[in-house]
């Protein structure tokens, strides 16, 4: 039973990284109606920036990470303003293709600016594991889970309880009507891009100690957060977050009880089956199309 909880805690930790990334994907999907394929790559780039801040400028980590997140927000806002909406009449398909091009740009920029070597990245807290009734938990894992929960709580509070949240939700449900009612839709999408990129940055900084900072460090996180978003349903904000934790925990449990090699394919197969049986995700509503 102790092992079970050990796996669950590990799953919650990876799940929180997926959840941060998935939240970014959904924010952009809801407001701008596109899938941001570059989320992972932008996160990777920001992890490089963060390493640069720590190693070259000698900033302590608790300053470097927030600074990197602010840079990420600016970057995200700029991308939305100048690439996504640089010209009128860009179709959504073109926008998604542009995010693919952004992947190329930043995968080119990262080795150019920071060198092609793998860079190690230290944990936030390097203290040894705590023993919680047999389950060993690193303080760093607790911090990751804590930060994720805090951010999720703040985001959901803003989305559900504030005027800003109403503006975002109105844009999500119908951009034209929202604009007619005086909501600055363009600002909302810029804000969504900014927050999403910052979330991607945070996810990358959390992954960095586990995988080192490399160009491909975010690939699997991005893939799983994408799958989580679909599993949870792109039409809700909380669905993808829940699905992220489910994927994180299920992957660990399958790995422990069934097979480490086959846990991920097995999980994907289960998700595939689920999507076929429930084509709108865990919490998604059926979208009725008009002809």
């Amino acid at each position, binding site marked *: 039973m102790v092992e079970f909880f050990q796996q669950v805690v590990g799953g919650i930790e990876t799940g929180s990284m997926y959840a941060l990334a998935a939240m970014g994907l959904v924010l952009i999907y809801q407001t701008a109606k596109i*899938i941001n*394929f570059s989320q992972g790559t932008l996160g990777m780039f920001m992890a490089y920036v963060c390493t640069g801040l720590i190693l070259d400028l000698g900033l302590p980590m608790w300053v470097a990470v927030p600074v990197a997140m602010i840079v990420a927000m600016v970057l995200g806002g700029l991308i939305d303003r100048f*690439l996504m909406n*640089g*010209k009128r009449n*860009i*179709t959504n*398909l*073109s926008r998604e*293709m*542009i995010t*693919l*091009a*952004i*992947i*190329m*740009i*930043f*995968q*080119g*920029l*990262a*080795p*150019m600016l920071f060198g*092609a070597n793998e860079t190690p990245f230290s944990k936030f807290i390097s203290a040894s594991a705590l023993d919680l009734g047999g389950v060993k938990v690193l303080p760093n894992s607790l911090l990751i889970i804590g930060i994720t929960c805090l951010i999720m709580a703040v985001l959901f509070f803003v989305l559900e309880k504030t005027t800003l949240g109403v503006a975002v939700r109105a844009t999500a449900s119908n951009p034209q009507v929202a604009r007619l009612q005086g909501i600055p839709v363009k600002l909302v999408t810029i804000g969504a891009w900014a927050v999403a990129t910052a979330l991607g940055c945070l996810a990358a900084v959390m992954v960095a100690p586990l995988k080192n900072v490399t160009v491909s460090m975010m690939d699997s996180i991005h*893939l799983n957060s*994408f*799958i989580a978003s*679909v*599993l949870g349903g*792109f039409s809700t904000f909380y669905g993808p977050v829940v699905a992220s934790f489910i994927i994180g925990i299920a992957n660990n449990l399958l790995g422990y009880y069934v097979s480490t*090699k*086959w846990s*991920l*394919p097995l999980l*994907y*197969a289960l*998700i*595939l089956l689920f*999507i*076929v049986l429930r*084509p*709108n*995700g865990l919490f998604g509503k059926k979208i009725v*199309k008009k*002809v």
Partner: protein
Amino acid sequence: MRLIRNKYLQYLLVGVAFLLPVIIRGVPTATVTLAASMVYTAIAALGINVLLGYSGQISLGHAAFMGLSAYLSAYLTKQMELPFLLSVLIAVLVPMLIGLILGAIAVRLEGFYLAIATLGFGEILRQLFIEMDWFTGGFSGASATYPKMFGHQFTKVEMYIFMVCLLVALMMLVYNLVRSSTGRAMIAMKSSKTAAMAMGVNVFQYKLISFAISSVFAGLAGVCYVHFFRHVDPTVWTAALSLNLIAIVVIGGAATVGGAVVGAVVMHGLPELMKGMPIVGEIPGVPLLIVGILMVIMLIFYPRGLIHIPRDIANFFQKRASHAKKGEV
């Protein structure tokens, strides 16, 4: 002029253009290799174009189909020592069957759900490539030989010529396909599923057909890959390749036969061209950066695809000419 407008002749000319590196003496082998990677990508992109451009279905799993065919063909020719054509037939039929299954799933799914289902499917296949050592050689990969057909052993150049011929044949095939009733039904399905159903198009059937066709194309591309490069390992067949195929179709021009080829040439040719340049090519990452920037510029200012550029230029001059005439009168 009319002769040039003939599509078949145009496709033949494309084939001749691809053969130039072989015809001209003294072209380095690296160029032939580059051209070969353009050709096999173009074949796969043609299939994606049938699926995405004409039928409006998305798939992020076609890279895995390519990989599956590549491994199958390598295994069948090398371990089972089957004749090349028979092994190609099997290597293409298996992805087609899987494509049919995916198509059956696709009937229930749309948009992102379809994308994710195919993506998950592709990742499962890729994990199989890594784990099934006896079949795929695991991480180190499987090797293959240049094909042997009718008692004749192909060389590298002959294999390349074979690929180009295949590409030209497939382009003609797609051209005919989209002008047939099947093609019209697919296009109707793309613009509105409900309207197509109301007009008596069997959406289920045509989704299956478009998935099957695109899987066959992906399979052929995989076969070409393995018998040209003579080696296959699991790092190639990632979701990134599937995304790349879609980008090729969009950049070249969706729902055009030539678009897939133009896209493949540009997407493969540009980074190599950049690498070859004096200052630019020496800094790591710069070629990728420049291609990315070019892609953004093109998508923002020319979203319909590169294939339309010549016609638009012609139209522009025609307009100016007619304006000038009006001015004289």
